[in-house]
């Protein structure tokens, strides 16, 4: 990754471990997801922050 052409938040983003990647699969497409963290159970943890005009 070239640090000169990416946003600062991408540079500070955390690369997930294999275990975490495994846990997050399928979570991206969930409606209320805020994928700032991973929840192996029901995604009850995910989605603290909503975005857009409605939430």
């Amino acid at each position, binding site marked *: 990754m070239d*640090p*000169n*052409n*990416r*946003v*600062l*938040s*991408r*540079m*500070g*983003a*955390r*690369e*997930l471990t294999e*275990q*975490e*990647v495994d*846990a*997050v699969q399928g979570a*991206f*497409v*969930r*409606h*209320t*997801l*805020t*994928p*700032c*963290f*991973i*929840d*192996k*159970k*029901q*995604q*009850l*943890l*995910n*989605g*603290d*922050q*909503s*975005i*857009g*005009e*409605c*939430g």
Partner: protein
Amino acid sequence: MKLIVLAPEDDNHTAPIKWALEKAGQKVVCWAGLSWTDEGQSSLLMDGDDTLILGGHSVDPGDVIWIRRPEVPVPNPKVSESDKKFASLEYRCFYHSIAYFFETLPVWCINNYSAARVMIQKAVQIRLARQCGLKTPATLMSNNPAAVRKFFSRDNARTICKGFTPHVWQKEGKMSVAITETFELTSDQLPSDEVLTYAPAIYQERVPKEYDIRMVLMGNHIYSYALKNKKQALDWRQDAGLGHVTAELVPTPPDVEKGVLEFARRSGVCFGSLDFGVDAQGTWWFLEINEEGQFLWIDQFNREARLLEKFCAFVTAPQGSNLPLEARQDLFPSLQEYEELLKNEQVAPIGRPRQEDPFLSMEA
């Protein structure tokens, strides 16, 4: 009275709460939001005896409206390409009319849409929290390189950086994933001025926290949970997601409680999830509030929390009731019971795939 939830029925908080309320004999209906489909259509008639219909449901005096997570308005996909932009704006404007109109009706909104729209702004939150007597870290929101560098030149100060919104980057064709996270940054690590203009960011004094607090506000009721993890990570969420965090009910210091209730009064928010960091001196630092933040996960980490039951008691409380929510929480079944049913496929699954995720980007 009925509860009208603005969210899809399979939303991960809506589904168990609807189930629990119905088990207790309460009426609950869901409206996923404005769309062209039969169930998404709405009518607002103002002829002296105003009526508002959401899908097949009328909004009646005394109803409770929980603006949980409505979907973005969906115009009819068959609309002419030439009219798509107009139709989309019309749908959006009509949705706003509905959401703000609730506030003129004799109903109770959780939360009022106008309050929610203002309080989603982190800058407003921090300023209001400070005005209400809560301790807040020094914060800079900026895309101006000179201002950023000046903020980092403060004496003996550690600084963290975070985004306004979360995001995920996934490498194309690979499983590799990176997630935005609050991270510490020094002046030496700052990138070029140009990079600092690529996206605004939040730069904040690092709170020397010993542990985190997740607080749930329900009207005048406040429940605070200490979140502790062995790694003392800057951001507890990743560890929580992997089950490495404990959530212990702790008393809220009187001055913090007073500040939070004043914050709620001034902002107009009656429900929300607040984050605090607690330092070695026991000082609680306000970090943020998510007015429709997630809270049922605390029941999974601490079965005695019973926030599902408390929330059910909150939304069904008689008007003007000053009773503690605990006095009525036994009327409702627990999340654990719901989870058993879910495991045995005796209730519908939650969270089916939907629209494109606005938080996900692919990268090379």
